[in-house]
Structure formats: structure tokens, C-alpha cells
């Protein structure tokens, strides 16, 4: 067992796949000589050479498009977006070209597009985004959002081996803050499409993913200590395809559900989860499905502004108390 950070776990996962399968290669901005803006691919250029670790021009559509073309021909490209905010520059390529390729043309497109997402780092409007909702609406894509070091590794490996295009959103706040002992031996794979119970509870459920798993766990501790509440925390891990069974199971268990996500509120993923519960598990509810999200504004830079806009542990606690009162 070795203790690794979230970032190191991700790097290990990438490296193991590069070693295991010669079809795997990496392309993106500054991924080679510099090792990536956050050093996720550090050392790869030296180890795997220029043909498998490709520094590209600043051109996200070209990065994703070229990855797609190579994937059609049987390769397994992993494209890095330097910050996930820039994935919008490849939105057309992902939603129109990549996502439809299998359906319209029978073309397998096994690519992974990964990059640092999320706020709480004073990154401002263009280095803090959580763009998952923009892609959740696109049939043909898969979306994963690891919260733990173990899943950072297990999901990148699963994503690379998946035959469909996978967007892998890695929260930059977790990169060096989360540590975990991972086994030295064996193939660590987190299956895509399966949620995880991060904490068991019987009184109410929080459905969440990515960095909000940790805020939710913190809130759950506090609620147990101060209110005697047993709070269950479900870490979705994969957003597309969503693990409906895990969602409905926790609804049936606690009968009170709230959803926590860092992305903005309107058109967010919480709305989709709420609708699914409403359609399929309405009879099991003892209260409304409540949301904790960012406010509907571009993410501001100043600490006072960012902290005000983003969900905080105190928000999760407050909303949980209101839900528990039903």
C-alpha cells in the first residue's frame, strides 16, 4: 500500500494504461515538455516519447477532432483540456461529431477528454467551471466525475478501456488535498455507471459527486453530532449514464433526498435527478427534493464573492435540517 494524492492516482492510472496498451496516447496543450499545467502527465514525454505524448497547438477543436479520427482507426487517445473551461471550444466537435459518430455512422470513437474542473481556488470565471450539464444533454457521451483518489485511478482506466467517448472531469481542488492508500498490485478499475455509498445513513440522503462529496460528508458528520441525524451520502461517480438504481434505492431507504452540486442551479444536474425521482419514486418521498448548488452567476474571483456563490458545508447543513423537519 502506498499513500497517493488524487493527482498521483490519476497519473498512475494514465501511466499504467500507456504501459499496458500501445494504442493509448496523450495529446493536449503543454502535456509533454511541461508535463501539463497541473503536472498530471509529468515524466510521460521522457518515458513514452513524442509520438505518444503530443504537445499540440492551442486548438481544442483540433485536439478533440484529431483524437476522434485516430480513435476511429483503432487507437485510444486521451486528450487533455488544460482547464476544463476550454472544453467549450471543442463543444461542436464533441456534441456534433464525436457523440453522434457511432449512431449515425457506426464509427466507434473511444476517446477520453479530461481536464481540471471546479472552483474554490480563486480561479475566476474561466478557470473554475463545471461544464458537465452542458454535455449531460448529449446522447452518445459518457461523463465521469471522480471524488476519491481510488476512483481517480479506477475511472481513468475504465474510461480509456471504454468503447465510447468519455469526458473525465477531475476537480482541481482535490488534486493535492485528497490522499488515499491504494494497493500496489492489481488492476484498479471503477466501473462506469455505478454510484458508491460514501456514507450510510437512515434519515436522509444527499446525492452528490466530485468535490461536493467531501462537503457533504463534512455536513453529515456535523448533522450526526449536533442533530443526531443519520445522513446517507451517495457519490454518483458517473453522471452519464446515471445510476438510477442507486438513486432510487437511497430514496426508498431514507425517503428524504437532497442533491448537492457545485455547478449553477438552472438547468443543472440536480434538476434532472429530481425529475427522475419524481417520475419513478414519488410514492417513497416524505418531503420535497431539495437542491444545494452555486448561484446562477458566472463564477467571480474575489474570495468573498466566490465563497458566497459556491455551495458551502453550512449550506448543506441548513438545507438538510429543513428537509429533516418534514
Amino acid at each position, binding site marked *: 500500500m502506498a499513500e497517493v494524492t488524487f493527482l498521483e492516482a490519476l497519473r498512475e492510472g494514465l501511466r499504467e494504461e500507456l504501459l499496458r496498451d500501445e494504442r493509448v496516447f496523450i495529446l493536449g496543450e503543454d502535456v509533454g515538455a511541461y508535463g501539463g499545467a497541473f503536472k498530471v502527465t509529468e515524466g510521460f514525454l521522457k518515458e513514452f516519447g513524442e*509520438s505518444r505524448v503530443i504537445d499540440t*497547438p492551442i486548438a481544442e*477543436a483540433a485536439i478533440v*477532432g484529431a483524437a476522434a*479520427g485516430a480513435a476511429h482507426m483503432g487507437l485510444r487517445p486521451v486528450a487533455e483540456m488544460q482547464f476544463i473551461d476550454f472544453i467549450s471550444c471543442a463543444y461542436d466537435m464533441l456534441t456534433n*461529431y464525436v457523440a453522434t459518430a457511432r449512431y449515425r455512422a457506426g*464509427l466507434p470513437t473511444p476517446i477520453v477528454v479530461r481536464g481540471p474542473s471546479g472552483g474554490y481556488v480563486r480561479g475566476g470565471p474561466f478557470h473554475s467551471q463545471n461544464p458537465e450539464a452542458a454535455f449531460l444533454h448529449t446522447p452518445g457521451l459518457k461523463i465521469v466525475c471522480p471524488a476519491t483518489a481510488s476512483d481517480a485511478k479506477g475511472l481513468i482506466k475504465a474510461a480509456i478501456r471504454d*468503447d465510447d467517448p468519455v469526458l473525465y472531469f477531475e476537480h482541481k481542488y482535490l488534486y493535492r488535498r485528497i490522499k488515499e492508500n491504494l494497493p500496489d498490485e492489481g488492476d484498479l478499475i471503477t466501473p462506469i455507471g455505478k454510484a458508491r455509498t460514501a456514507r450510510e445513513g437512515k434519515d436522509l440522503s444527499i446525492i452528490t459527486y466530485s468535490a461536493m462529496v467531501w462537503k457533504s460528508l463534512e455536513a453529515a458528520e456535523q448533522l450526526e453530532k449536533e442533530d443526531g441525524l443519520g445522513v446517507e451520502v451517495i457519490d454518483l461517480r458517473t453522471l452519464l449514464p446515471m445510476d438510477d438504481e442507486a438513486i432510487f434505492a437511497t430514496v426508498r431507504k431514507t425517503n428524504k433526498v437532497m442533491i448537492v452540486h457545485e455547478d449553477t442551479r438552472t438547468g443543472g444536474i440536480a434538476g434532472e435527478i429530481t425529475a427522475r425521482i419524481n417520475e419513478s419514486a414519488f410514492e417513497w418521498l416524505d418531503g420535497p427534493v431539495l437542491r444545494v448548488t452555486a448561484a446562477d452567476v458566472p463564477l467571480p474571483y474575489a474570495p468573498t464573492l466566490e465563497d458566497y456563490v459556491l455551495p458551502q458545508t453550512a449550506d448543506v447543513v441548513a438545507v438538510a435540517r429543513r428537509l429533516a423537519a418534514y
Partner: protein
Amino acid sequence: MASRAPAAAPPLAPAPGAAPPIPAGLGRAQLADIYYYLRLTRSLEERLTNLYRQSKVIGGLFRSLGQEADSVGSAYALEKRDFLSPLIRNLGSMLVKGATPLQIFRQYMAKAESPTRGRELNIHFGDLEKGYLGQISHLGDMVPVLAGVALSFRMRREDRVCLVYVGDGATSTGAFHEGINFAAVQRLPLVCIVENNGWAYSTRTSKQTAVRLLVEKAAGYGVPGVRADGNDVLAVYEVTKRAVDHARNGGGVTLIELVTYRRKGHAEHDAQGYQPKDEIAEWEKHDPIERYERQLDETGWMSRAERDAIQERIAAELDEAVTVAENEPFPAPESALEGVYGEPARIAPLWYRES
């Protein structure tokens, strides 16, 4: 420059009755092939026009009338193992690559057995085995994708080349710029053909770009640029072949501007009122197929009788294909839920559609 060059010796007059040499290393069998594909493209589109008028075509119909030479001549310069991605007016390129009239009819009539099983329209389909990739409607997007295909060839040390087509309009897109720039930097084996047919829907090339000639854009990417008469099928073959050889030999990207003209509207519904009638009439005189026929007559490379035989063969092929396609069914409605993903292979039906 011409005035300073030494006077060239006049070409030897061919002996009376002897045919002049065929250019670009082609032989008579290949000239006949090229003629077949030119005629097949035009005749197939004419059949489609009839089907369109009978409301048997589902959706729009896109003609390449007057542009057949640029498609056929360029695609013919590829080897079988090479790869291309066509645009909406490159039916001829796809036929050269092995697409069949039956597939085209099935596509345009949205049949279950069509290459896309009724998911996509017209000539938006591909075949990895035969070496062509279906386009999407978002112009320029195929340039990065074909750069990626070319990248895979290089990574596997395969001796293969990619050809991607864009129109004058698509050169304005970001995807075109990003894709050709990436391919140029990486020196990938990619040939990019800019088909300048004068019009992007109703917009003239002069409203598309401020460069004098589209080929000048090549300089911006540090790649060779060549410009050729897109209505001269052998000239198209020759410039493409040179660029393909250059790419195969590790020379990287070439941008080729082929000058041609779109004699029909954007699609069959378009009355093309914005195109001056005399301009269309002028280009009719430069029809690429008639021009090739005159060349074949003048040189004696191929007789009228041989050409007539080809045309008869095409008519028979098309008769058969259209009969087969017309009598086939549409796809089963529930098949719409299949194949969005490899896994799961089928999307669950909406609960109120469950039977």
C-alpha cells in the same frame, strides 16, 4: 519569367494517326475508369433528381453538376489503402472509393438497409474498410478528424495518405484553421483540397475571404499551395497525385485549390436566383465531362463507341439499383434506440412507449 526562359523546342508532331502520350503516367484503362466515374456521378445524380421530383427522396438533394471532375480526378489519385473524407458535392470521390449506387439510393430514400440504417441523410456515410469517412454538416470539422486519421497512420508507420475536402465557405471556419494548422505542425500525410465553386449557398467567395486567391492561405500554414483547373479532370489528377506522393514521402500537408463552379443551387429546392444567368451559361461551356470527351476525341485515347458502352453499362447498373432500393422498407421505428453507445447497446424506451 517566360520571356527570360530559353525558347523551348516545339513538341514533336505526333505521327499521323498516332495518339499523343497520355499525361500523368495514366494508361488507357485508367482513362476509361475516370470516364466511368464521371458519367456514373452525373447519371446517378440525374436519377436522384427524378426520384426527388417524385417525392421519393426524403429531404434535400445536393448536386455536383459541373464539379464531377474535381471529385473524380482527385480521389482517383489515391491508392486503395488511402483515406478520404468527402463533402456534400463529392459523390464522385465516394464512388471512386467504392461507394455503390445502391447505397446512395438507399441513403437518399432513408431505407433500412442504407449504410446509416436511416439515421443520416444523403451522402453522409463512410466505410472504414474502403477508406472514406462520412462527413457531418458542420463545415470544416472533417479537417481535424482526418488529421487524426493521418496521425494514426504515422503512429503505426503505415504508408497511407489522407485527403480531405473543404469548400470555399469552409475555409472560413475555425475547425478548418485548427485542423490544417495542427496537421502542418505535425507534418502529417494530409492533402487538403479546397473546392472553390464560387458560392457558399448564396454567398460569393469574395464575401467569404479577403485573400485574392484561396490558395494564398497555404502560406499561413507554412505548407505548399497549388491551384488548378477543377474542370480539367487530368489536371486535377495530376496535382493531387503530386501532393499525395509528397505526403507519402514525409513532406506533410499540401493545400490544393481547385477552381470550379456550382451550376445548380445549394440544394435542389434552391432556385439560385442570386447566381447570374450568364455566369452559369458561361460555365456550361466548360462542362468537365464534355471537355474530357472532346479531349478523348481529339487525342484518340478513347473512342465514342467505347464511351457509349460505358454509358450503357451505367444505365443498366442504375436501373437495377434503383429498383432494389425503391422496393425496400424504411427502418423499424424501435431500431432508433440502438447503437447510441457500444454499451449499453440499446437505450430503454420511454415508459409510455413500452409495449
